[in-house]
Protein backbone atom coordinates (compact mmCIF):
# COMPACT_ATOMS: atom_id res chain seq x y z
CA UNK A 1 0.00 0.00 0.00
CA UNK A 2 1.02 3.57 -0.66
CA UNK A 3 0.33 6.42 1.77
CA UNK A 4 -2.23 9.05 0.86
CA UNK A 5 -0.67 12.26 -0.42
CA UNK A 6 0.68 14.83 2.01
CA UNK A 7 2.84 17.93 2.01
CA UNK A 8 6.37 17.59 3.25
CA UNK A 9 8.45 20.09 5.15
CA UNK A 10 12.03 19.56 6.28
CA UNK A 11 13.03 22.38 8.60
CA UNK A 12 16.59 22.77 9.74
CA UNK A 13 15.86 24.34 13.13
CA UNK A 14 13.44 23.58 15.93
CA UNK A 15 11.87 27.01 15.58
CA UNK A 16 11.20 26.38 11.91
CA UNK A 17 9.70 23.00 12.81
CA UNK A 18 7.36 24.58 15.32
CA UNK A 19 6.43 27.27 12.85
CA UNK A 20 5.75 24.66 10.18
CA UNK A 21 3.54 22.70 12.54
CA UNK A 22 1.65 25.81 13.55
CA UNK A 23 1.15 26.77 9.93
CA UNK A 24 -0.02 23.32 8.91
CA UNK A 25 -2.71 23.06 11.54
CA UNK A 26 -4.08 20.13 13.47
CA UNK A 27 -3.65 17.55 10.72
CA UNK A 28 0.11 17.91 10.57
CA UNK A 29 2.32 15.21 11.97
CA UNK A 30 5.92 15.15 13.04
CA UNK A 31 8.13 12.67 11.20
CA UNK A 32 10.88 11.53 13.54
CA UNK A 33 12.31 8.11 12.65
CA UNK A 34 9.06 7.10 10.99
CA UNK A 35 9.23 3.49 12.10
CA UNK A 36 5.78 3.57 13.66
CA UNK A 37 4.37 6.30 11.47
CA UNK A 38 5.20 4.92 8.02
CA UNK A 39 3.33 1.62 8.45
CA UNK A 40 0.33 3.56 9.74
CA UNK A 41 0.42 5.81 6.70
CA UNK A 42 0.84 2.86 4.34
CA UNK A 43 -2.19 1.12 5.79
CA UNK A 44 -4.02 4.46 5.41
CA UNK A 45 -4.98 4.48 9.06
CA UNK A 46 -3.97 8.15 9.21
CA UNK A 47 -4.22 11.02 6.72
CA UNK A 48 -1.91 13.83 7.80
CA UNK A 49 -2.01 16.95 5.65
CA UNK A 50 1.65 17.69 6.24
CA UNK A 51 4.66 15.82 7.53
CA UNK A 52 7.24 17.89 9.31
CA UNK A 53 10.49 15.92 9.08
CA UNK A 54 12.85 16.58 11.97
CA UNK A 55 15.55 14.48 10.35
CA UNK A 56 17.87 17.33 9.44
CA UNK A 57 17.81 19.29 12.69
CA UNK A 58 21.30 18.59 13.92
CA UNK A 59 20.67 20.04 17.38
CA UNK A 60 18.22 17.24 18.10
CA UNK A 61 20.81 14.49 17.86
CA UNK A 62 23.31 13.14 20.32
CA UNK A 63 23.89 12.59 24.00
CA UNK A 64 25.56 15.08 26.29
CA UNK A 65 26.54 15.15 29.92
CA UNK A 66 24.67 17.83 31.85
CA UNK A 67 25.95 17.25 35.36
CA UNK A 68 23.27 15.29 37.22
CA UNK A 69 21.58 14.18 34.05
CA UNK A 70 22.18 13.07 30.53
CA UNK A 71 20.49 15.09 27.86
CA UNK A 72 19.56 12.97 24.90
CA UNK A 73 18.42 14.68 21.73
CA UNK A 74 14.96 13.56 20.65
CA UNK A 75 16.23 12.49 17.22
CA UNK A 76 18.95 10.26 18.62
CA UNK A 77 18.31 6.82 17.19
CA UNK A 78 17.87 3.68 19.27
CA UNK A 79 21.05 2.39 17.72
CA UNK A 80 22.96 5.49 18.83
CA UNK A 81 21.48 5.26 22.30
CA UNK A 82 22.40 1.64 22.79
CA UNK A 83 25.98 2.22 21.65
CA UNK A 84 26.53 5.48 23.54
CA UNK A 85 29.23 5.44 26.21
CA UNK A 86 27.51 7.99 28.46
CA UNK A 87 24.25 6.05 28.34
CA UNK A 88 26.09 2.83 29.09
CA UNK A 89 27.66 4.42 32.13
CA UNK A 90 24.82 6.47 33.56
CA UNK A 91 21.62 4.92 32.20
CA UNK A 92 22.32 1.32 31.25
CA UNK A 93 18.63 0.50 31.65
CA UNK A 94 17.90 2.72 28.68
CA UNK A 95 20.58 1.02 26.59
CA UNK A 96 19.33 -2.42 27.55
CA UNK A 97 15.76 -1.56 26.60
CA UNK A 98 16.75 0.26 23.41
CA UNK A 99 18.53 -2.89 22.27
CA UNK A 100 15.22 -4.74 22.37
CA UNK A 101 13.25 -2.26 20.27
CA UNK A 102 12.17 -3.67 16.90
CA UNK A 103 15.15 -4.99 14.97
CA UNK A 104 18.44 -3.61 13.69
CA UNK A 105 16.82 -1.83 10.77
CA UNK A 106 14.19 -0.22 12.97
CA UNK A 107 16.82 0.82 15.50
CA UNK A 108 18.85 2.54 12.79
CA UNK A 109 16.01 4.92 12.05
CA UNK A 110 13.69 4.88 15.06
CA UNK A 111 14.37 7.60 17.60
CA UNK A 112 14.01 8.00 21.33
CA UNK A 113 11.89 11.12 20.92
CA UNK A 114 9.70 9.40 18.38
CA UNK A 115 9.07 6.47 20.68
CA UNK A 116 8.16 8.69 23.60
CA UNK A 117 5.94 10.96 21.54
CA UNK A 118 4.18 7.98 19.99
CA UNK A 119 3.40 6.91 23.57
CA UNK A 120 2.46 3.34 22.88
CA UNK A 121 1.84 1.86 26.34
CA UNK A 122 3.46 -1.35 25.07
CA UNK A 123 6.59 0.56 24.14
CA UNK A 124 9.80 -0.22 25.95
CA UNK A 125 11.20 3.28 26.10
CA UNK A 126 8.22 5.15 27.58
CA UNK A 127 8.37 2.60 30.41
CA UNK A 128 12.06 3.21 30.93
CA UNK A 129 11.68 6.99 30.79
CA UNK A 130 9.00 6.77 33.44
CA UNK A 131 11.08 4.45 35.61
CA UNK A 132 14.16 6.65 35.40
CA UNK A 133 12.13 9.76 36.30
CA UNK A 134 13.17 11.36 33.05
CA UNK A 135 11.94 14.80 32.11
CA UNK A 136 11.19 15.94 28.62
CA UNK A 137 12.03 19.22 26.95
CA UNK A 138 9.26 20.49 24.76
CA UNK A 139 9.28 23.49 22.44
CA UNK A 140 6.20 25.20 21.09
CA UNK A 141 5.20 28.56 19.62
CA UNK A 142 5.13 30.16 23.06
CA UNK A 143 8.52 28.87 24.10
CA UNK A 144 9.90 25.83 25.83
CA UNK A 145 8.85 23.83 28.86
CA UNK A 146 10.03 20.75 30.65
CA UNK A 147 7.56 18.00 31.51
CA UNK A 148 8.16 15.13 33.89
CA UNK A 149 7.71 11.71 32.26
CA UNK A 150 5.12 11.08 34.93
CA UNK A 151 2.99 13.88 33.45
CA UNK A 152 3.92 13.37 29.82
CA UNK A 153 1.95 10.21 29.08
CA UNK A 154 -1.76 10.97 29.23
CA UNK A 155 -3.55 8.05 27.60
CA UNK A 156 -3.22 5.42 24.89
CA UNK A 157 -1.01 6.97 22.16
CA UNK A 158 -1.60 10.35 23.78
CA UNK A 159 0.82 12.78 25.42
CA UNK A 160 0.65 16.33 26.69
CA UNK A 161 2.24 17.53 23.46
CA UNK A 162 0.11 20.10 21.65
CA UNK A 163 -0.15 19.66 17.88
CA UNK A 164 2.38 22.44 17.35
CA UNK A 165 4.83 21.31 20.00
CA UNK A 166 7.97 19.28 19.45
CA UNK A 167 9.77 17.07 21.92
CA UNK A 168 13.39 18.15 21.67
CA UNK A 169 15.31 16.33 24.37
CA UNK A 170 15.03 13.76 27.10
CA UNK A 171 16.73 14.47 30.40
CA UNK A 172 17.67 11.27 32.15
CA UNK A 173 18.93 11.68 35.72
CA UNK A 174 22.13 9.77 36.28
CA UNK A 175 21.86 6.85 38.62
CA UNK A 176 24.61 6.58 41.19
CA UNK A 177 27.02 3.69 41.38
CA UNK A 178 24.89 2.05 44.09
CA UNK A 179 22.03 1.60 41.65
CA UNK A 180 21.56 -1.40 39.42
CA UNK A 181 18.93 -1.92 36.76
CA UNK A 182 17.30 -4.51 34.57
CA UNK A 183 14.74 -4.55 31.79
CA UNK A 184 12.66 -7.73 31.55
CA UNK A 185 10.66 -8.01 28.35
CA UNK A 186 8.26 -10.79 27.63
CA UNK A 187 6.92 -11.16 24.13
CA UNK A 188 5.52 -13.98 22.05
CA UNK A 189 8.16 -13.62 19.38
CA UNK A 190 11.33 -11.69 18.86
CA UNK A 191 9.72 -8.99 16.74
CA UNK A 192 6.53 -8.67 18.75
CA UNK A 193 5.62 -5.93 21.15
CA UNK A 194 5.96 -7.01 24.77
CA UNK A 195 2.96 -8.66 26.35
CA UNK A 196 4.36 -7.10 29.50
CA UNK A 197 7.64 -5.30 30.05
CA UNK A 198 9.17 -4.47 33.40
CA UNK A 199 11.88 -1.90 34.05
CA UNK A 200 13.51 -2.12 37.44
CA UNK A 201 16.07 0.04 39.19
CA UNK A 202 17.31 -0.93 42.63
CA UNK A 203 19.59 0.79 45.12
CA UNK A 204 21.13 -1.65 47.52
CA UNK A 205 22.56 -0.82 50.87
CA UNK A 206 24.05 -3.18 53.40
CA UNK A 207 22.19 -6.32 52.38
CA UNK A 208 18.88 -4.64 51.91
CA UNK A 209 17.09 -2.75 49.21
CA UNK A 210 17.17 0.90 50.11
CA UNK A 211 15.08 2.13 47.23
CA UNK A 212 13.51 0.65 44.12
CA UNK A 213 11.70 1.87 41.06
CA UNK A 214 9.58 -0.35 38.91
CA UNK A 215 7.88 0.60 35.67
CA UNK A 216 5.42 -1.53 33.74
CA UNK A 217 4.84 -1.57 29.99
CA UNK A 218 1.52 -2.67 28.52
CA UNK A 219 -0.32 -2.87 31.83
CA UNK A 220 -2.60 0.07 31.13
CA UNK A 221 -3.23 2.87 28.69
CA UNK A 222 0.08 4.47 29.65
CA UNK A 223 3.28 3.10 31.15
CA UNK A 224 2.78 2.73 34.88
CA UNK A 225 4.91 2.75 38.01
CA UNK A 226 4.28 -0.21 40.31
CA UNK A 227 4.15 2.01 43.38
CA UNK A 228 2.97 -0.70 45.75
CA UNK A 229 5.99 -2.79 44.83
CA UNK A 230 8.29 0.18 45.24
CA UNK A 231 6.90 0.86 48.72
CA UNK A 232 7.13 -2.78 49.73
CA UNK A 233 10.72 -3.03 48.51
CA UNK A 234 11.93 0.08 50.29
CA UNK A 235 13.99 -1.22 53.15
CA UNK A 236 13.25 -4.86 52.38
CA UNK A 237 15.86 -7.59 52.68
CA UNK A 238 17.79 -8.23 49.50
CA UNK A 239 16.55 -11.81 49.53
CA UNK A 240 14.55 -13.89 47.14
CA UNK A 241 11.73 -14.31 49.65
CA UNK A 242 11.46 -10.63 50.42
CA UNK A 243 11.48 -9.71 46.75
CA UNK A 244 8.89 -12.37 46.01
CA UNK A 245 6.61 -10.99 48.70
CA UNK A 246 7.03 -7.41 47.57
CA UNK A 247 6.50 -8.11 43.90
CA UNK A 248 3.21 -9.85 44.53
CA UNK A 249 1.82 -6.29 44.49
CA UNK A 250 2.95 -5.68 40.92
CA UNK A 251 -0.49 -5.73 39.32
CA UNK A 252 -2.10 -3.43 41.86
CA UNK A 253 -3.54 -0.34 40.29
CA UNK A 254 -3.02 -1.57 36.74
CA UNK A 255 -5.64 -1.88 34.02
CA UNK A 256 -4.08 -4.23 31.51
CA UNK A 257 -5.66 -4.82 28.12
CA UNK A 258 -6.93 -8.18 26.88
CA UNK A 259 -5.83 -9.00 23.37
CA UNK A 260 -4.53 -11.80 21.18
CA UNK A 261 -1.33 -12.09 23.18
CA UNK A 262 -2.94 -12.35 26.55
CA UNK A 263 -5.94 -11.73 28.76
CA UNK A 264 -5.82 -9.14 31.51
CA UNK A 265 -5.50 -11.82 34.21
CA UNK A 266 -2.53 -13.37 32.42
CA UNK A 267 -0.89 -9.97 32.15
CA UNK A 268 -1.43 -9.39 35.87
CA UNK A 269 0.21 -12.72 36.57
CA UNK A 270 3.08 -11.91 34.22
CA UNK A 271 3.55 -8.53 35.84
CA UNK A 272 4.15 -10.24 39.17
CA UNK A 273 6.52 -12.88 37.78
CA UNK A 274 8.46 -10.48 35.57
CA UNK A 275 8.70 -7.82 38.25
CA UNK A 276 10.20 -10.39 40.60
CA UNK A 277 12.64 -11.48 37.93
CA UNK A 278 13.53 -7.92 36.98
CA UNK A 279 14.11 -6.80 40.56
CA UNK A 280 16.12 -9.90 41.39
CA UNK A 281 18.22 -9.50 38.27
CA UNK A 282 18.80 -5.83 39.03
CA UNK A 283 19.61 -6.51 42.68
CA UNK A 284 21.83 -9.45 41.80
CA UNK A 285 19.81 -11.89 43.88
CA UNK A 286 19.97 -15.53 42.85
CA UNK A 287 16.58 -17.20 42.58
Amino acid at each position, binding site marked *: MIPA*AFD*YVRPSTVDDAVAALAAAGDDAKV*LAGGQSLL*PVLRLRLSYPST*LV*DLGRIESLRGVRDDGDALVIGAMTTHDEVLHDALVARHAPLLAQAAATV*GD*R*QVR*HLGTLGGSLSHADPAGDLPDVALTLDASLDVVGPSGSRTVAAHDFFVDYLTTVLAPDEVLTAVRVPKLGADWATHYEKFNRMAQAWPIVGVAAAVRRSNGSIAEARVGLANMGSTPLRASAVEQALAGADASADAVRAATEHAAEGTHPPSDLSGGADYREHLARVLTRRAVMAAAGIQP
Partner: protein
Amino acid sequence: MTQVDVKVDGVAYRDDVEPRTLLVHYLREQLGKVGTVVGCDTSNCGACTVLLDGRSVKSCSVLAVQADGREVTTIEGLSGADGALHPVQQAFHDEHALQCGYCTPGMIMAACDLLRDNPDPSETEVREGIEGNLCRCTGYQNIVRAVQRAAKATVTS
Protein backbone atom coordinates in the same frame (compact mmCIF):
# COMPACT_ATOMS: atom_id res chain seq x y z
CA MET B 1 6.83 17.01 -6.22
CA THR B 2 10.04 17.36 -4.28
CA GLN B 3 13.50 17.10 -5.72
CA VAL B 4 15.88 14.53 -4.33
CA ASP B 5 19.56 13.98 -4.93
CA VAL B 6 20.47 10.46 -4.02
CA LYS B 7 23.33 8.16 -4.83
CA VAL B 8 22.26 4.60 -5.44
CA ASP B 9 24.78 1.82 -5.94
CA GLY B 10 27.42 4.38 -6.76
CA VAL B 11 25.40 6.37 -9.30
CA ALA B 12 24.08 9.87 -8.54
CA TYR B 13 20.44 10.55 -9.40
CA ARG B 14 18.39 13.74 -9.29
CA ASP B 15 14.67 13.12 -9.48
CA ASP B 16 11.34 14.68 -8.64
CA VAL B 17 9.28 12.52 -6.34
CA GLU B 18 5.97 12.83 -4.58
CA PRO B 19 6.70 13.20 -0.86
CA ARG B 20 4.65 10.10 -0.15
CA THR B 21 6.84 7.94 -2.36
CA LEU B 22 8.45 5.20 -0.32
CA LEU B 23 12.14 4.68 -0.90
CA VAL B 24 11.51 1.14 -2.13
CA HIS B 25 9.03 2.36 -4.72
CA TYR B 26 11.45 5.04 -5.85
CA LEU B 27 14.15 2.39 -6.27
CA ARG B 28 11.90 -0.04 -8.09
CA GLU B 29 9.75 2.18 -10.20
CA GLN B 30 11.83 5.28 -10.92
CA LEU B 31 15.30 3.73 -10.99
CA GLY B 32 14.39 0.21 -12.12
CA LYS B 33 16.23 -1.28 -9.16
CA VAL B 34 13.81 -4.19 -8.95
CA GLY B 35 16.29 -6.34 -7.04
CA THR B 36 14.87 -4.79 -3.89
CA VAL B 37 11.40 -6.17 -3.23
CA VAL B 38 8.36 -5.52 -1.06
CA GLY B 39 7.00 -8.28 1.15
CA CYS B 40 4.71 -6.56 3.61
CA ASP B 41 3.23 -3.24 4.62
CA THR B 42 4.08 -3.18 8.30
CA SER B 43 7.89 -3.35 8.09
CA ASN B 44 7.98 -6.84 9.62
CA CYS B 45 9.42 -8.92 6.79
CA GLY B 46 12.60 -7.03 5.92
CA ALA B 47 12.57 -8.12 2.27
CA CYS B 48 13.11 -4.49 1.25
CA THR B 49 16.25 -3.97 3.36
CA VAL B 50 18.90 -1.71 1.83
CA LEU B 51 21.80 0.22 3.29
CA LEU B 52 21.24 3.93 3.84
CA ASP B 53 24.56 5.65 4.44
CA GLY B 54 25.91 2.20 5.22
CA ARG B 55 23.30 1.15 7.79
CA SER B 56 20.49 -1.31 7.15
CA VAL B 57 17.00 0.14 6.88
CA LYS B 58 13.70 -1.14 5.60
CA SER B 59 13.17 0.84 2.44
CA CYS B 60 9.39 0.43 2.77
CA SER B 61 9.53 2.48 5.97
CA VAL B 62 11.58 5.35 4.63
CA LEU B 63 10.33 8.07 2.33
CA ALA B 64 12.37 8.75 -0.77
CA VAL B 65 12.60 12.38 0.35
CA GLN B 66 14.30 11.25 3.55
CA ALA B 67 17.08 9.76 1.42
CA ASP B 68 17.82 13.15 -0.17
CA GLY B 69 21.54 13.82 -0.05
CA ARG B 70 22.30 10.33 1.15
CA GLU B 71 23.73 7.14 -0.28
CA VAL B 72 21.80 3.93 -0.82
CA THR B 73 23.26 0.49 -1.47
CA THR B 74 20.99 -2.23 -2.77
CA ILE B 75 21.58 -5.89 -3.53
CA GLU B 76 22.39 -4.79 -7.07
CA GLY B 77 25.33 -2.72 -5.89
CA LEU B 78 27.01 -5.41 -3.84
CA SER B 79 28.96 -7.43 -6.35
CA GLY B 80 32.24 -6.13 -7.66
CA ALA B 81 32.71 -4.33 -10.96
CA ASP B 82 33.92 -7.61 -12.48
CA GLY B 83 30.66 -9.25 -11.43
CA ALA B 84 32.33 -11.26 -8.68
CA LEU B 85 29.94 -12.07 -5.90
CA HIS B 86 30.27 -10.27 -2.58
CA PRO B 87 31.41 -12.70 0.16
CA VAL B 88 27.92 -12.71 1.67
CA GLN B 89 26.32 -13.48 -1.69
CA GLN B 90 28.86 -16.23 -2.26
CA ALA B 91 28.25 -17.71 1.18
CA PHE B 92 24.48 -17.74 0.64
CA HIS B 93 25.08 -19.73 -2.53
CA ASP B 94 27.60 -22.07 -0.94
CA GLU B 95 25.48 -22.84 2.13
CA HIS B 96 22.16 -23.16 0.26
CA ALA B 97 20.81 -20.28 2.31
CA LEU B 98 17.96 -19.54 -0.05
CA GLN B 99 15.17 -21.40 -1.74
CA CYS B 100 12.56 -19.19 -3.39
CA GLY B 101 14.94 -16.27 -2.96
CA TYR B 102 12.38 -13.57 -2.27
CA CYS B 103 13.74 -12.71 1.16
CA THR B 104 17.32 -13.08 -0.05
CA PRO B 105 18.18 -9.52 -1.15
CA GLY B 106 16.98 -8.11 2.16
CA MET B 107 18.54 -10.93 4.13
CA ILE B 108 21.90 -10.41 2.46
CA MET B 109 21.81 -6.67 3.08
CA ALA B 110 20.89 -7.26 6.73
CA ALA B 111 23.76 -9.72 7.02
CA CYS B 112 26.20 -7.21 5.53
CA ASP B 113 25.10 -4.66 8.09
CA LEU B 114 25.46 -7.14 10.93
CA LEU B 115 28.95 -8.18 9.84
CA ARG B 116 30.05 -4.57 9.70
CA ASP B 117 29.26 -4.26 13.42
CA ASN B 118 30.23 -7.76 14.39
CA PRO B 119 32.75 -9.42 12.09
CA ASP B 120 32.65 -12.75 13.92
CA PRO B 121 29.15 -13.34 15.25
CA SER B 122 28.07 -16.39 17.22
CA GLU B 123 25.01 -18.35 16.10
CA THR B 124 22.86 -16.48 18.61
CA GLU B 125 24.24 -13.15 17.45
CA VAL B 126 23.47 -14.00 13.85
CA ARG B 127 19.94 -15.02 14.72
CA GLU B 128 19.40 -11.80 16.65
CA GLY B 129 21.07 -9.79 13.93
CA ILE B 130 18.64 -10.97 11.26
CA GLU B 131 15.51 -10.99 13.41
CA GLY B 132 14.05 -8.23 11.27
CA ASN B 133 14.03 -10.43 8.16
CA LEU B 134 11.54 -13.22 7.66
CA CYS B 135 12.23 -16.29 5.56
CA ARG B 136 9.57 -18.91 5.02
CA CYS B 137 11.62 -21.42 3.05
CA THR B 138 14.84 -22.22 4.88
CA GLY B 139 14.07 -22.37 8.58
CA TYR B 140 17.05 -19.96 8.84
CA GLN B 141 19.62 -22.64 9.69
CA ASN B 142 21.52 -22.36 6.41
CA ILE B 143 21.24 -18.59 6.52
CA VAL B 144 22.96 -18.63 9.89
CA ARG B 145 25.65 -20.90 8.46
CA ALA B 146 26.07 -18.61 5.47
CA VAL B 147 26.49 -15.49 7.56
CA GLN B 148 29.10 -17.22 9.68
CA ARG B 149 30.84 -18.52 6.57
CA ALA B 150 30.88 -15.03 5.09
CA ALA B 151 32.33 -13.74 8.35
CA LYS B 152 35.19 -16.20 8.10
CA ALA B 153 35.73 -15.42 4.42
CA THR B 154 35.83 -11.71 5.15
CA VAL B 155 38.17 -12.09 8.09
CA THR B 156 40.63 -14.26 6.18
CA SER B 157 40.52 -12.37 2.89
